[in-house]
């Protein structure tokens, strides 16, 4: 998942559709994010490339909407409802996920091993 600056980023992604759960006044998705262009990427335990400043899933709460939808810990979120998440600050990422007007978020996520899985499935 490392990229060369100046070259377009390519990745094999999986679509994850999460229906938000209403908890009182809030709509929650049931996971936590880490990362962002304003954060220190060397401290990201999930990234393969330690200069990657993308948004990663750091925790998935049990039984929550994210787990049900198939989101896994360590996933890198590439897009949310069409909005890019590869070059955003931490706060911008949080905001794009927690828009009160949206009850469903469609994420494009990538994880290590997806590329290999696709290749294997093509060979088979």
């Amino acid at each position, binding site marked *: 998942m490392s990229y060369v600056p100046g070259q377009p980023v390519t990745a094999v992604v999986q679509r994850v559709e999460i229906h938000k759960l209403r908890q009182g006044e809030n709509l*929650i*998705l049931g*996971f*936590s*994010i*880490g*990362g*962002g*262009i*304003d*954060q*220190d*990427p*060397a*401290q*990201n335990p999930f990234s393969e490339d*330690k*200069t990657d*400043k993308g948004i990663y899933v*750091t*925790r998935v709460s049990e039984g929550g909407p994210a787990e049900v939808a198939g989101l896994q810990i360590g996933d890198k979120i590439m897009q949310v409802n069409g909005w890019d998440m590869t070059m955003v*600050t*931490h*706060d*911008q990422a*949080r*905001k794009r*996920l*927690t828009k009160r007007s949206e009850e469903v978020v469609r994420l494009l996520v990538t994880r290590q091993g997806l590329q290999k899985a696709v290749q294997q499935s093509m060979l088979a």
Partner: protein
Amino acid sequence: MQDRLHILEDLNMLYIRQMALSLEDTELQRKLDHEIRMREGACKLLAACSQREQALEATKSLLVCSSRILSYMGELQHRKEAQVLGRTARRPSDTGPPDERSPCRGTICISDIRIPLMWKDTEYFKNKGDLHRWAVFLLLQLGGNIQDTEMVLVDRTLTDISFQSSVLFTEAGPDFELRLELYGACVEEEGALAGAPRRLASKLSNSLGRSSGRRVRASLESAGGSGGSSAASPILLPTPAVGGPRYHLLAQTVLTLASVQDGFRTHDLTLTSNEESPAWLPLYGSVCCRLAAQPLCMTQPVMSGTLRVQSWGQVHGILKGTNLFCYRHPGEANAQEDPLFTIAINKETRVRAGERDQTLGAPLTLSISNQYGGDEVTHTLQMESRGALQRWMEALWQLFFDMSQWKQCCDELMKIEVPPPRKPPPALAKQGSLYHEMAIEPLDDIAAVTDILAKREGPPLDVPPHWLALFTEKLPTSKLPIHAPRSPSPPRACPGPRATPWGRPRTLSLDAAPRGRPPLPPRSSSSSSSGSGSPAPRQRSPPAQGFRAKARPWLQSPV
């Protein structure tokens, strides 16, 4: 010519002293004597100065002393006139209604003064590299009281002129006028060519950079002319050294009660010099400061005594500021304990004297009514005697009058810190940027670099900084994480979120070293986080502290 001027000067001093003596005003006399002696001392110091910076300090003291002497003289003349007029007018003229109220005095404090500058591109690009420096200071005058700030050196690396000192004026009335005058002088090059013969000097001035050449030409012309007069009137108090530095009035303004606010505020400056003047500085045209006022009625108890309050019994009441504090007995007030209860006294309060209920037979009562939301709460106070009633009524009316005069200063008490006595100006070190101090040998001595940084910035780095990795070969191939570039535009005269108790933003110079306390970065520059929900302290990465990256926890947020 010099001798004649000298004689005139002495005669003037003599006259001033005589006037002070004749008025038999010992206070003013003492102050005048003090200033005259200070002035003589400053003249001697100026004559003995060798370094430019010392000469600037001495000239500044001279200017301040001269202004003070002038103002005392004005005061003396005023009183002399009044005395003379008083003797001729035998009949006491009706001066107005007998119970003419005068508002209480107050303390005015002006602090955190900042004057933005507006450098032109010619200063950076077409200047042949020489760094022009100016020495500036502010002269503040309120009534007969003249005070000055410290002298600050300014060059093109600064975006504002900041004065750290705060100035206090006591005994000011609500109709005060605080006059601010900004004086500036060039630090170098003016004196260097003063002694050179005219032809050589004009040849040199043509081959200097544009702005310095213009300045030199202007100073040459002015030096030949009026013979070195300061801002004060020439004949009365002529300054001795012609070759010494000259301060020019750059800008001025007058602040009144309308400008007082418990926070940082911008005021307009009237610019009095133009580009031709030798000490011209590109001022933006405004001055930002915190002008606070503490009227005496807010800080000192106006009235106190025993009262009998309905449903509370006998209490000891103290009227101070916007409250009437009621204690069980006088001792409690001294012991700084909480009052039994408090009655608010403000512009909305209504006070009535007289009986509330005839049948109770309580003749000496006072009613204080306040509106809380939709309800009206009335407290009835019973006095001990008619005299007490009169005194309380008088105190309350005076308080209401003071509130109407001091207006916004009586809404809440504005905090004023008494400034510590100013230290004598330290040996003026050359104001340099971090680069001047970075002479490291051998060149790759990391310990030396961190030492210099630690001495500058204070607490040592507890976590090894990022760039250290370059030298310890922990990350051989990766590049250093580049923080998103932040535009270092300091907030232009608009207050940002609170960094000090009264919300003054700190602006960092472009490459000058941080002075004194380590600067807090301006909050509005960390705009890349665009967060109104998340608190800003998470995202602090000050732009001027280049390669010093503190290790921050990697943020995780639940969604």
